[in-house]
C-alpha cells in the first residue's frame, strides 16, 4: 500500500482494531484489489469541477483521452473534482505506475500529446512544466515543490476535503479504499445512536450553512421526535455567489456527504435522506445522483445497511433558481414542490418538517466532516481550531486575489494568513481594499481588518459573518458603493416576496443605492437606508429579510466616507461609478 505524504490513511485508526461488519470487510477487500489493479496502470487525473470546466478542463480531458488512444496506451483517465488550486486550472496530474504524481498547471489541450508521450510513454516527467509533485518516490527534481509545500497548500488541514481532487468522484471503490464508509461501519458494528451523537457533540462541530448551530445538539432535537418516518435534509442549494465549496464537495467527493447523511440518519433514527441541489448545476447534480445510486448498489443505502438492522433511503431533489430556497423552511416547501417561501416557526423542523414529518437540515460541509469524526474519534476535529469554533474553515477565495480557489484551513488562522499568505494577496501589487464574506447577506469588511481570525464569533464581532466560507476580495479599483449596490440588487431579485418588509424594503434600498451611484443621492438617503433596514429586520419571517440590511450596514461602517463622497461631492473616489450600470434588474412576480 502506498502512503501518500501529508494525507492520513486509516492505519492506526480505532476502526482498524475494532470489529468490522462482514459486509464492510468484503467491500474493503474488493476496493483494495481494484485500487491495486489501477496502480499498475498509468493514471491521468484532470480537474473538471465547475472551476475546471470554466478554465477548459473538459477539452483538456478529451485531449488526454485522445492522446492515450492514439498511442494505444492503457491509461486510466479520471475526471476528478477540485483540488482547490483553481488558479492553476486546467490542472492535470500524471502518474507513471509506481511513480509519484506530478501536477501540471494551466494545461492546454495542445500540450496533452507531448505530456502523454514524455511522461506516460517514456516515463520522463516534464519537470519544466510541473507545478508540484506528490507521493512515494517523489524525489524532487529541480525546484519542483511537493504538493504540500505549495504556498496555497501550506497550513491547510484537510478533513472534509481530504479526498477532493485526489480520488475519482465517480468511483465508490476509490472512496472505500481510502477509508470511506469506515465511519459508518464503525457506528453500525458497535456504537449506539446515543454514542454517535455524543461523539459529534464532543467534536464541537457547528453548522457550516450560516448560523453555526452546534450539530450534535441539533441532532438531539430530532432524536427526541417520534418516528418512524423522519428526514435528514442535506442543503446544497448554495446560492451564495462567490461560494462553491458545497458544489465542490459534491463534485469531488460525493460519498463523504452520502456517508455523513447516513450517519446522521442512524444517529437520529431518521428513515429518509434528501440531497437538495439547484437545478442547472449539472456536475454536482450528476455526481450526487450517481453516488446515491452506487451506495444503493453496494448495500450502503436501503434495507439492512451493511447487514445491520438499520434501513435508510436517500434521493436527490432539485429546485429551481431561488436563493431563499436555501433557508431551511423554504427548502422544505421546495422539496414538496411548491414555491420556495419560508414557513412560520414554530413548529420547528424537528417537530414538523418536510411532508409534515420531523426533519433535520444540515449543510453539505457539516455532514462531510462527520465520517472522519466517527471513524477516527472527535479529536480529529476538536483538536483543530479555536475554543468555540472547532475544526476547519472551508473557504472559497475569489475576486482580486493572486490564487483564487478553495482551501480548508484551521479555524483561528487570521484572514491575513489565508489571503496574503496562502492565496498570495491582491495581484499586480495592489492592496486589498475590502472583503465580502458569508454571502450577500453576510457583510463587508475593510481591508484593515485582516487580523481578524477565522472564527464564527470573532468574525461576527468584526461585523461580518463567516457563513458558508465564500470570501470575495476587492482591491482599490473597486467602489464600495457600487459593490453594495450589486449585493442589494441580488438581495432584491432573490426576495421571495412573501413578507412585504423584505419585498418592498429590498426594492427601496436598491433604488436608493442606484441613485447614490448616479450621484443623485441626497443627505436623507443614509438615514433612510437605516430606517428601511430596521423595518426589514423587525418584520421579515426569514433570514433573507432579517439580515438583508447587513451588506449596507457593514459597508457604511467601513466605507461611510465613500458613500458621502458620492452623495455630497458627487464623485466616485475609485472612479468606477459613471452614472450608468448594466446590472440586470428583475423581480419575482
Amino acid at each position: 500500500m502506498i502512503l501518500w505524504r501529508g494525507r492520513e490513511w486509516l492505519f492506526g485508526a480505532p476502526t482498524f482494531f475494532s470489529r468490522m461488519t462482514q459486509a464492510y470487510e468484503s467491500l474493503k477487500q474488493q476496493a483494495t484489489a481494484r485500487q491495486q489493479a489501477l496502480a499498475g496502470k498509468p493514471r491521468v487525473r484532470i480537474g473538471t469541477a465547475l472551476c475546471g470546466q470554466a478554465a477548459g478542463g473538459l477539452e483538456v480531458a478529451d485531449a488526454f483521452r485522445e492522446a492515450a488512444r492514439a498511442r494505444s496506451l492503457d491509461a486510466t483517465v479520471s475526471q476528478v473534482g477540485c483540488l482547490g488550486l483553481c488558479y492553476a486550472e486546467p490542472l492535470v496530474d500524471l502518474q507513471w505506475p509506481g511513480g509519484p504524481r506530478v501536477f501540471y498547471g494551466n494545461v492546454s489541450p495542445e500540450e496533452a500529446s507531448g505530456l502523454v508521450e514524455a511522461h506516460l510513454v517514456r516515463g520522463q516527467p516534464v519537470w519544466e512544466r510541473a507545478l508540484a509533485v506528490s507521493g512515494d518516490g517523489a524525489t524532487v527534481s529541480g525546484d519542483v515543490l511537493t504538493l504540500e509545500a505549495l504556498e496555497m497548500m501550506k497550513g491547510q488541514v484537510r478533513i472534509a476535503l481530504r479526498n477532493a481532487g485526489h480520488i475519482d468522484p465517480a468511483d465508490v471503490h476509490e472512496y472505500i479504499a481510502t477509508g470511506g464508509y469506515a465511519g459508518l461501519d464503525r457506528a453500525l458494528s458497535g456504537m449506539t445512536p446515543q454514542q454517535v451523537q455524543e461523539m459529534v457533540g464532543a467534536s464541537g462541530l457547528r453548522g457550516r450553512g450560516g448560523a453555526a448551530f452546534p450539530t450534535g445538539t441539533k441532532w438531539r432535537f430530532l432524536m427526541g421526535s417520534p418516528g418512524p418516518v423522519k428526514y435528514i435534509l442535506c442543503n446544497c442549494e448554495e446560492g451564495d455567489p462567490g461560494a462553491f465549496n458545497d458544489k465542490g464537495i459534491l463534485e469531488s467527493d460525493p460519498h463523504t456527504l452520502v456517508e455523513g447523511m447516513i450517519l446522521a440518519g442512524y444517529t437520529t433514527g431518521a428513515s429518509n435522506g434528501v440531497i437538495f441541489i439547484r437545478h442547472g448545476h449539472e456536475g454536482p447534480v450528476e455526481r450526487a445522483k450517481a453516488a446515491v445510486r452506487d451506495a444503493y448498489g453496494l448495500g450502503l443505502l436501503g434495507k439492512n445497511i451493511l447487514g445491520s438492522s438499520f434501513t435508510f433511503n436517500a434521493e436527490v431533489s432539485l429546485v429551481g433558481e431561488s436563493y431563499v430556497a436555501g433557508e431551511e423552511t423554504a427548502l422544505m416547501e421546495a422539496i414538496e414542490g411548491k414555491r420556495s417561501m419560508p414557513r412560520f416557526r414554530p413548529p420547528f423542523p424537528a417537530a414538523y418538517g418536510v411532508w409534515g414529518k420531523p426533519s433535520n437540515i444540515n449543510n453539505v460541509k457539516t455532514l462531510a466532516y462527520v465520517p472522519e469524526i466517527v471513524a477516527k474519534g472527535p479529536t480529529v476535529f476538536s483538536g483543530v481550531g479555536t475554543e468555540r469554533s472547532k475544526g476547519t474553515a472551508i473557504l472559497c477565495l475569489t475576486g482580486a486575489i493572486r490564487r483564487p480557489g478553495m482551501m480548508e484551513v484551521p479555524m483561528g488562522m487570521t484572514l491575513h494568513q489565508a489571503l496574503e499568505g496562502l492565496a498570495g494577496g491582491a495581484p499586480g501589487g495592489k492592496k486589498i481594499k475590502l472583503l465580502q464574506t458569508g454571502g450577500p447577506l453576510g457583510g463587508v469588511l475593510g481591508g484593515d481588518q485582516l487580523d481578524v481570525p477565522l472564527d464564527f464569533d470573532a468574525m461576527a464581532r468584526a461585523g461580518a459573518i463567516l457563513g458558508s466560507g465564500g470570501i470575495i476580495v476587492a482591491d482599490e479599483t473597486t467602489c464600495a458603493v457600487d459593490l453594495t449596490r450589486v449585493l442589494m440588487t441580488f438581495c432584491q431579485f432573490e426576495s421571495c416576496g412573501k413578507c412585504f418588509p423584505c419585498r418592498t424594503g429590498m426594492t427601496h434600498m436598491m433604488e436608493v443605492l442606484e441613485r447614490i451611484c448616479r450621484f443623485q443621492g441626497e443627505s436623507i438617503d443614509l438615514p433612510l437606508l437605516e430606517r428601511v433596514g430596521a423595518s426589514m429586520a423587525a418584520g421579515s419571517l426569514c433570514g433573507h429579510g432579517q439580515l438583508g440590511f447587513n451588506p449596507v450596514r457593514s459597508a457604511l461602517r467601513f466605507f461611510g466616507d465613500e458613500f458621502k463622497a458620492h452623495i455630497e461631492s458627487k464623485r466616485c473616489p475609485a472612479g468606477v461609478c459613471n452614472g450608468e450600470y448594466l446590472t440586470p434588474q428583475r423581480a419575482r412576480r
Partner: protein
Amino acid sequence: MQPRGDTLNATIRKALESHGNGAVTVLSSLLTLEDALGYIPPEAIEEVAHLTHTTVNDVWGVASFYPNFRFEPPCEHVVEVCWGPTCHLMGAPAVMKEVLATLGLNTEGDTPDKRVTLKFNTCLGACAQGPVMSLDHHLVGRLTPQEAGKRLSGVVGMKGNRSLQ
C-alpha cells in the same frame, strides 16, 4: 422543429413518466419538462396539474415563481452571463455590454431571429474563473469582452444546429 399538438402531448406524457425516482411533485415535474422540452407549454401545465392532483392555478403559481422556466419554445442556443458580485468585480459589466452588443439586445431575452436566448445568472458556480458565461451549458471563464464577443459571433453567424463550444 418543436413538437406540436398530439405529438407535443405525447412528448409531455413520456417525459413525465420517465421522471426520476424521487418524490413526484409539481416542481419536479416542471423541471423534468423544462429539461425535456426547453420550455413549459400550456398543455404541460394542465398535464402536471392532472398528474399531481392539483389545479392549473397551483402549477402556474410554481412555474411563474422560479425564473428558470420559460413559456415559449427555446431558441437554438442559450447564453448565460453571470453578474454575481465576484464576476462583477472581475469585469462582468464590460463582458455583458459586449454580449448585448453582439446579440443586438438591450437586456436579457431572445434575439429576433430566435437563434439565441440571453439570460442573466446570479452565479454560475465557477467564481474562481470570473468573469464567467455559459454557452449552451458549457462554462467559459476568465473572459475578456473581446473573448466573449469572439465566442458569440461564432453563434450569431452560425447556420443550423452546430453546437457551440
